[in-house]
């Protein structure tokens, strides 16, 4: 652990609530340890839907052709479910899947996909021989698409309906690899999400998140736009997302890729990797007292 890292956690001196001094803060430089990959995804039509949608009553019938069952539900993830069928998701992570730096071999690893939509990352980690995969879906989210993919793939991924804010070592255990895809930008308190994820992460994390390109190019500043039209969520620049990872107790934050997705209205995403900071995060009490007056 570096020196500056320690200083950040110098702790609870004579805290003066309600004031911020000095106004000019020691901003932390966000540096990638490796050159990030720039990826442009062209806009192209996703797989066409079947001409006829079966009635809902037909969906559960396992003897329906896979293509019909896939076509009967809405998909978020594009997943290759075999037999030449790829689910018509709005997000296709299959292309450039190497950019996310998921280890090719996850043998013996316990993995978690947080707020999994249809389970793309869960199935991907299972495909890479993870010994156990938990797919944490929204408590009230749809599960039909996930169930179809899971069955078609003969997967043993465990689907848990759990809020990310309820993640805890006691409830879910800890994980060697956690994937958080497209969540931080749609919640009011993204830091709290990362704090909870940190509590169950013992290995490494991949964060795939939209960033606001209009807030890039301001040096080290961690900037975010408040979005009242989106429920009070934040559109963050890359620095902010990286900083939130550090505040949550992750170290070695690395930018792995930036993605420009023309197929999703030019959405720009960043892929960040990080590992839990297991070193002592605060100095002994006598050295922690910092006068700010």
């Amino acid at each position, binding site marked *: 652990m570096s020196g500056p890292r320690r200083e950040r956690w110098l702790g609870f001196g004579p805290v003066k609530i309600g004031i911020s001094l000095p106004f000019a803060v020691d901003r932390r430089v966000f540096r990638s340890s490796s050159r990030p990959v720039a990826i442009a995804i062209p806009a192209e039509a996703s797989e066409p839907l079947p001409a006829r949608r079966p009635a809902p009553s037909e969906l559960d019938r396992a003897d329906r052709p896979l293509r019909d069952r896939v076509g009967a539900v809405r998909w978020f993830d594009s997943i290759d479910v075999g037999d030449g069928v790829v689910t018509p998701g709005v997000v296709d992570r299959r292309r450039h899947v190497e950019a996310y730096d998921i280890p090719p071999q996850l043998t013996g690893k316990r993995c978690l996909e947080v707020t999994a939509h249809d389970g793309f990352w869960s199935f991907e980690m299972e495909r890479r021989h993870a010994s156990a995969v938990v797919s944490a879906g929204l408590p009230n989210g749809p599960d039909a698409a996930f169930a179809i993919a899971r069955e078609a793939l003969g997967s043993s991924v465990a689907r848990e309906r759990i809020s990310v804010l309820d993640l805890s070592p006691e409830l879910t255990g800890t994980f060697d690899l956690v994937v958080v895809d497209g969540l931080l930008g749609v919640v009011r308190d993204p830091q709290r999400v990362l704090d909870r994820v940190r509590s169950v992460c013992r290995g490494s994390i991949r964060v795939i998140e939209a960033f606001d390109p209009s807030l890039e190019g301001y040096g080290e500043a961690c900037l975010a736009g408040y979005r009242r039209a989106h429920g009070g969520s934040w559109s963050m620049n890359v620095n902010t997302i990286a900083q939130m990872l550090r505040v949550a107790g992750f170290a070695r934050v690395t930018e792995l890729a930036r993605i420009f997705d023309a197929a999703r209205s030019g959405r720009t995403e960043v892929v960040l990797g990080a590992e839990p900071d297991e070193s002592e995060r*605060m100095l002994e009490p006598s050295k922690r007292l910092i006068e700010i007056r």
Partner: protein
Amino acid sequence: MSLPGRRDTGAPAAVTTGPPGREAWKNGRTGSAPGQGAAESQVDPGAEALRAAAAAIDWYHTIDLGHGVVTEGLVDHRPQLDSYHLPESLRGMRCLDVASMDGFWSFELERRGADEVVAIDVARRSDLDLPYGVREEIIRSGQDGPATAGFEFAHRALESKVDKKIVSVYELSPERVGQFDLVFLSDLLLHLRDPQTALDHVRSVCRGVAYVADVCHPDLETGDSTCLAEYPTWVPGEYVWWRMNANTIGSMLLEAGFDTVDELSRFRLNVPGAKPESLPAKVVFRASVGSAARSAGSRPMQAVR
């Protein structure tokens, strides 16, 4: 706690009682030898004990406790009261001071004649919005303690009837505390990880107007309606989550459900002894609900540089 200022200590008075204010307080603290005071005959026997007891507290607010004793707070709101545009009389109103700290604003609301003033704050340092792992570390290392140093002391000294409750802003609800004609909130949002949710709770207990006076970030003012915030790196000893521009705070108030939001003023917070360039910029909003929602006296935005 027995308040020294309210009893006759019988000790010889050593310090003259000067006029209320910072200078008087400083003079009293440094003390002068017995017999040196030019006006011994004017000594207030309770003042020195009150002053001595107050000096043992690490004050955040500068509060005039009477007897010529003024607490040496980190911030002094007194010269800037007019910038908050509070009603001169609060008679007939039930008022709430959110995150009251040492209680300056609670006592000010009471002084203006509010029928009832409720002050809420968290109990312990560990109850604040803290970064991951810090809460546990504070508790483990024995650094936890009361979040507020001086409220009870000032409450007794002023013989205040303010009703102090241990309630987090995130816990505010009509069921818990009832509703209020006036809610006052100052310098809190920047210390909250989720200011929008906090304002939602403030709105839930407001049936009239809310005065929200918080630190804003002049460097993020764009001159239009852009809502920007900076996510800061940590400065040791302080926990600031968001540095927002004024538009962001105003938009959050609207999102929380207030019907009208008027910006009243911008200024630099008065921090005695601090460098002018380091003084936080503040913006004051008045947000109104229902029948109280009329855009009265809205002032044009002022740039703070």
